[in-house]
């Protein structure tokens, strides 16, 4: 690039240099000689990379473990406990019989102080909400548009009862969870906030504001909860939470939030209605109260995994360092190269 040109020739020279640069680039591209970085796994590189990763992972692991351990969780399995003694032998008969009262009161002890909000979940095990037939058995269009949308073939057998269509149709809605819980600390009932438990996008865009339950649970087989036909689907948060199918056979779903603090050693009484039938497939039900941290609920796995992986990286880094110090190899030595070829030269 020469200095001191007039503007006209400067523009000309610029366009020339632009085409030169472009053809230079094309030349490099077609001749496969682009400027390149060729990383090589040299010992210094390896040791430093492993060390750096280890050094990053260990504090992250400690942070995650700390977050997980700061969460206080109370889980109580009640499906067997809540069956009165005479019916323990024939659970199915118990659960199917509407005349047997399903009330049950259990006491939970709070191990450490729990700060509001405290999340209340119900946990189901051995319940394959991710089974293909089950997942298919719903109609998203009907959930959004209601009776206007007639084609609900996928919902069989829960699509038409007594000649009339069912809203919401399908097995997923039909099997909705219907145990209820209320919590007491002494005589004072803890207020459980049942609003805002579903995802906002589901409430606003997947369930219609003008769709009402119709002909629901009217058949001979009752699968779960009944729905109030006067509340539109977008406000039926329990249904929305239930309809968001889970990934694994053991899952929790949000029931509500307790907005008060609980102190250590408090005794919480849970008055629940044991309506839901998990006995016919040896499932189990649990009631869970849990606080949350920035990372979520109580699961030490992430923290422990980070710590293990981080420490193994550091261990390997040291191992390599030791081995390299013991056995230094010079790479400028070309005889080293010819040695390596003996084993492929035959």
């Amino acid at each position: 690039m020469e200095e001191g040109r007039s503007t006209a020739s400067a523009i000309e020279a610029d366009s020339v240099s632009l085409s030169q640069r472009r053809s230079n680039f094309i030349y490099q591209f077609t001749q496969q000689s682009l400027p390149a970085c060729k990383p090589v796994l040299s010992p210094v590189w390896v040791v430093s990379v492993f060390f750096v990763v280890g050094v990053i992972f260990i504090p992250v692991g400690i942070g995650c473990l700390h977050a997980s351990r700061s969460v206080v969780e109370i889980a109580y399995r009640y499906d067997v406990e809540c069956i009165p003694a005479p019916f323990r032998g024939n659970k199915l008969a118990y659960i199917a019989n509407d005349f047997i009262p399903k009330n049950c009161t259990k006491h939970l002890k709070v191990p450490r102080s729990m700060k509001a909000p405290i999340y209340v979940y119900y946990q189901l095990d051995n319940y394959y909400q991710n089974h293909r037939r089950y997942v298919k058995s719903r109609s998203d269009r009907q959930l959004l548009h209601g009776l206007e949308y007639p084609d609900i073939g996928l919902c069989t057998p829960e699509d038409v009862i007594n000649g009339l269509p069912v809203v919401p149709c399908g097995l997923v809605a039909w099997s909705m969870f219907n145990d209820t819980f209320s919590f007491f600390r002494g005589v004072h009932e803890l207020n459980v906030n049942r609003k805002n438990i579903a995802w906002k996008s589901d409430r606003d865009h997947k369930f219609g504001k003008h769709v009402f339950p119709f002909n629901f649970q009217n058949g001979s087989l009752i699968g779960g909860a009944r729905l109030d036909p006067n509340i539109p689907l977008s406000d039926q948060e329990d249904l929305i939470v239930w309809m968001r199918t889970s990934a694994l056979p053991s899952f929790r779903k949000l029931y509500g939030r307790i907005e008060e603090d609980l102190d250590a050693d408090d005794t919480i009484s849970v008055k629940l209605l044991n309506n839901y039938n998990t006995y016919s497939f040896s499932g189990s039900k649990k009631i869970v109260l849990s606080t949350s941290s920035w990372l979520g609920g109580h699961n030490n796995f992430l923290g422990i995994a980070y710590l293990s992986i981080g420490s193994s990286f550091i261990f390997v880094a040291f191992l390599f360092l030791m081995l390299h110090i013991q056995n230094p190899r010079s790479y400028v030595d070309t005889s080293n190269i010819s040695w390596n070829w003996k084993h492929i030269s035959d």
Partner: protein
Amino acid sequence: MYERTQSHISLRELDHESHQKIDRPYELLHVLEFSSSRRRMSVIVRNVENQLLLLSKGSDSVMLERLSKNSQDFVAVTMDHVKDALIEAAADEIERDLILLGATAVEDKLQIGVPECIEKLENAGIKIWVITGDKMETAINIGYACSLLREDMEQIVITLDSPEIIELEKKGDKEAVAKASRESVANQIRRGTLLLSSYEGRSVSPALIIDGKSLSFVLSQNLEGSFLHLAVSCASVICCRSTPKQKALVTRLVKKGTGRTTLAIGDGANDVGMLQEADIGVGISGVEGMQAAMSSDFAIAQFRFLERLLLVHGHWCYRRISMMVCYFFYKNIAFGFTLFWFEAYASFSGQPAYNDWYMSCYNVFFTSLPVIALGVFDQDVSPRLCLMNPELYKEGIQDILFSWPRILGWILNGIICSVVVFFFTTSSAVHQAFRGDGRVVDFEVLGVYMYSCVVWTVNCQMAISINYFTWMQHLVIWGSIAFWYAFLLIYGAFPPLFSTTAYQVFVEACGPSPFFWLGTMLVVVSCLLPYLLYRTVQTEFFPMPHDSIQKWQRETSDGRRGKLREKDTLLCK
């Protein structure tokens, strides 16, 4: 003849009756083309009197055979005219009393760079045969000139120019000649094999030289096996006086007999058969016309460019393709097996773990471009070093990079990755909340979580496997990962009736969750750990030749550690 069109030939003839020159057109009906086996050419014409005439010309030996019995009268006179003695007598009268002007010599030079090229290719483990139409002395001289033959090499010569055979040929008995020739060739091959066995273990094997006549007996009389056995044990083979057909037949013999890959290089029309017969045909375009180049797989301008074609591009191509195939298996196994492990937790009902569109786009958008970048652009060693170290080429000859242990190793890597991805994601997100607001992991979130881990893992695996990072590799690898998130955003913005389980899953559920990002980082690093360990141990303690070359290249580069700017010259000088 004064005019010739496609259909007519016009001759100006002397009419017998009027003794005048008249023009007579002949209608051209058919041409029987010349061929080297027939050695004649004929045309069929119709003259003005509506007679059909066949006019034929060819070499004298061939035409005399075809004369009818009653036209022998001109034969003797014509043969007299063609007789050598008369021609010699005529030439002798003319070529007298000459003035000496000087002396000339013709040096048919080899192209520049041919000896060096051949030496490099021999160092690379490639056996070189010369099949030429020249006579034996010329071929041997060429062999010495391009260092195929060396002073200390013994030469095994198989020829039918011995006195006994020539005697028999003079006698004219074809059967006896054939029998004796076959005997002679078989004997010579046997002698050559005996000589060879006495050379076992010595560094310099002898060279084999065979002429075209012997070659025709070898190829037609079931002597191929012994000939091939002798020939492949020799350092180099020169076939002289070969016809184009023999060139092709020898190539086929080597190809089928040894089962190795053959490459034929030639520059003339007589090499076309050989070029097409070989696995790879390289045509040199230029002096002798374009026919060789047009019938070849690769066309180059000079012989010495073969060096670069094989040692640089051949070497790279082998590496790229074997690496690409192994990687393809790996990435699809890593992806597919996560679906399989998920089925174990969905009671094998066939429910896929991911949204349909994620799965459809996996091989198209999120993991395809890096593979293409690998298969087209990867370079393990710079061109200069490829040319300096021809021994690197042996990696390809011995198929080291695409052996069963390697393929199975990559498949195992894929399975391990899928196991780590699935079990780490499901163990970290069992049923507890994954965000500060108490929400739990559901089917949609787990799908995105696992899929992001898979996409990150296979792309980072690519990043640590390739040896050559230009801006393009950076763009496609990190771009593919970024494109996944962009896709998720765009797809999630579509109405829920279309995007079903992906509706706003990233924006609302996964994106704001630190657990999601920390989990992804953990899974990706854990998946890559086995491969990193393997590679480090292998390069450190059991380096393969190209690893050593790479390290050597890096240590002796200009002081910038970790980067090497290569602006190689285009052709080797």
